[in-house]
């Protein structure tokens, strides 16, 4: 009854809960892998696994950023358009640099720098409008979503912006090469995930995000600079979008109005499948990573089999997403939920 217990139980208790929490999405992922393998053993072939991981990097990196925004009680619908916009501007700038100074590694460095600045700037704008102008995050980011998408269409004159082919040859390896057998995008994803996890779980900032998402008043009364922290979550989101775009551009070497459509929904879905709550107050970067893998794996599995009509892909996807979340909330999470 007294508090003598904490010392003894706190650490293991905490460890155990962490296991249970990650277990939900992880279990869903494992079942999905088993399903994939049983439908087609090539699912676990090295090439496919590497493809799958590389692919999940885009959504995964963006979703890590979204974890912060959502944990702090916000939402960002603009990420897909933002990615298209950043990709478009990167390409324009790099093409201009090629014209002006010829092709070199610096062209790509310039493009990357440009992307980072844009990502941070776009994140800041979202953050500023939500915190200072006090407009709902949903509306702000719905607005910027439309704006970025329009701008990229405008820059591309309704068509596609393509990276100069020489510049592309220099840039290509960033998507297509591997280090120690692991594709570079996967390295970036791992890095972002680790940094994100540390930031969320081991720094004051992460704690502040959870506090704000959980009860903004308490955060304010606890000397947390609520507006500043919230703005930072959007900046982190922008930075993540920028990183995802940096590895996206060399993949296809182009950007158009169709780039990044619906990424926002996928990113938010990854976050929520991973166990973060849409209402905020509770962030799980590890879960988000698994969520992104689950989403990518579903698409991959659907390509592995011909059992169902292509028209029904979306239905299968929907069923699997709901089932995956049910699996973790419904069974394992039931008691936790009920108790809350």
């Amino acid at each position, binding site marked *: *009854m*007294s*508090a003598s*217990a*904490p*010392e003894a*139980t*706190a650490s293991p*208790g*905490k460890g155990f*809960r962490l296991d249970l929490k990650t277990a939900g999405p992880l279990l869903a992922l494992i079942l999905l892998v088993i399903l994939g393998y049983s439908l087609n053993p090539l699912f676990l072939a090295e090439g496919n696994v590497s493809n799958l991981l590389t692919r999940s990097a885009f959504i995964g990196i963006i979703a890590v950023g979204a974890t912060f925004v959502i944990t702090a009680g916000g939402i960002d619908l603009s990420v897909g358009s933002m990615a298209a916009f950043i990709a478009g501007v990167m390409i324009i700038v790099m093409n201009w640099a090629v014209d002006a100074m010829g092709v070199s590694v610096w062209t790509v460095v310039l493009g990357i720098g440009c992307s980072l600045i844009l990502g941070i700037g776009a994140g800041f704008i979202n953050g500023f409008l939500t915190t200072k102008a006090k407009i709902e995050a949903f509306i702000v980011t719905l607005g910027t979503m439309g704006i970025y998408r329009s701008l990229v269409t405008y820059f591309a004159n309704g068509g596609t912006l393509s990276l100069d082919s020489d510049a592309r040859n220099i840039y290509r390896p960033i998507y297509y090469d591997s280090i120690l057998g692991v594709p570079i995008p996967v390295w970036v994803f791992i890095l972002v995930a680790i940094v994100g996890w*540390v930031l969320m779980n*081991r*720094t*004051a900032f992460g*704690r*502040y995000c*959870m*506090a704000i998402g*959980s*009860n903004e*008043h*308490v*955060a*304010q*009364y*606890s*000397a*947390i*600079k609520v507006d500043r922290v919230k703005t930072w979550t959007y900046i982190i989101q922008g930075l993540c979008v920028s990183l995802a775009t940096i590895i996206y551009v060399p993949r296809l070497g182009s950007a158009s109005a169709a780039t990044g459509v619906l990424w926002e929904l996928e990113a938010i879905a990854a976050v929520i499948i991973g166990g973060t709550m849409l209402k905020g*107050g*509770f962030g799980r970067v590890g879960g988000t990573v698994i969520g992104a893998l689950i989403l990518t794996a579903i698409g991959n599995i659907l390509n592995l089999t011909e059992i169902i009509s292509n028209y029904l892909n979306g239905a299968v996807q929907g069923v699997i997403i709901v089932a995956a979340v049910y699996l973790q909330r419904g069974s394992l999470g039931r008691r936790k939920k009920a108790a*809350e």
Partner: protein
Amino acid sequence: MVDAASASGSPILSASRISKSFGEIPVLFSIDFDVKPGEVHAIIGENGAGKSTLIKILSGFEQPTSGTIHYDGRQVTLPPNGEAEAMGIVLIHQELNLAEHLTVADSIFLGREITGWGGFLDLKQMREKSRAILDTLHVRIDPDARINTLSVADKQMVEIAKAISRDARVLIMDEPTAVLSVGETETLFEQIRRLQARGVAIVFISHKLDEIMQLAQRVTVLRDGQLIATVGTEALTPDSIAQMMVGRELSNLYPPKHEPDVDAPVVLSVRGLRAPGVKDVSFDLRRGEILGFAGLIGSGRTAVAEAIVGLTRRTAGEIEVHGKPVNFTDVGKSVAAGLAYMTKDRKGRGLLLNVGLQPNLTLLTLKKHIKGAFVDGRSEEQALEKAVRRFDIRARDASVPAGKLSGGNQQKLLLGKTMESEPDIIIMDEPTRGIDVGTKQQIYHIIAALAAEGKSIIVISSELQEVIGLSHRVVVMREGRLAGRLEGAEITEAEIMRYAAGIKQDGDNERISA
């Protein structure tokens, strides 16, 4: 007092051999309890003794692990989620239980709206009835006001209004007076006596022993989930109750006041402060001084504190800390300057209810626990250990979400959180809200010790005894202004009440001091 005869019938609600465990953890052991029509039956006990759990079982919000409940002589299983209200068992929860976005009238009638023609809401009637009930409680709350615009005390009054508006046969109240001042408490008691006279059975929980002596016919004492005794009040004194509760003698609730040093430097000086809810407030706080803030609900004490620490914008006036003018724009700045404010709204402003003890304790002072760039879990754990010892926080383990602690233990956690910042100047808003006498004594001694160390403390409290017992000086607020300042022997209940009620004003007093 109500005549004993009315309370001598057979019990309307009784529980026998009630035990309750949350998971593996037992919190109640085979409790017998009953209440008769027209009786006030008080439950007392230390924080975490199981009082709230017991009455939640008595009203169906929790199901007992074992044991039986009889209502009207028949054994029953009470329906959950307040559905027992339909049977006449009404509970006022310890923690405010109102939806922030609804209006006062909506809240009072939530779940049993008055409908008129065609099943539509009869808004007019609900508004009028709300106003009538609030009138009987002598509170000035607009039935159309939204809950989130009310102060904590007003919210509590709404809760009370809500409860007495129902046709209760058993009315159970879990620390209804914790945030109320003397005046409000008195009106509440009037209402309780009125209901009692009508034969309503009343269960009443409070940590204020004099209230229990005043109101109750019988007292049940719980300790660590065990039933210690059920006795008639006439056989008791506050001291003997306290002793049963805590299990030890409780002499000297208030520590001896050390002589205030009149030459001590002024550490906080407020001049002509105007802010939302504050109209022209000036006062000084000296080093080593305990300054009491008294006043009725909504008199602006909280508003003064919040304006000082930068939670609301002040519109006029100067504030000096250690002789230097300051303008705190957020709490961080005031904490950095050594000035901390402890909110009275522990649930809405004080604690994150969904996380454990440790993150709550260190939220205000997380910077102290940063090693390199990272939060140092070890150092946080040590801080928690220390706070747990110092404030006697009782929790199953450190990972229990703060929202699941007993009310008093939440308050202690909040106290620990504020004290973590090691402030020189502390503004404590209702510091012992919901705290048992034993711990109260500890806290009073902590406050006195802090003052002796040279810290300066403002105690905002609606409990006059507390203000009187602790403070070197007392200021009384009324309608956003300082109505009076009292010192030494002037600090009496009667005098404070005179200022608070506006019978006497600052100008009437010849010795106006800064």
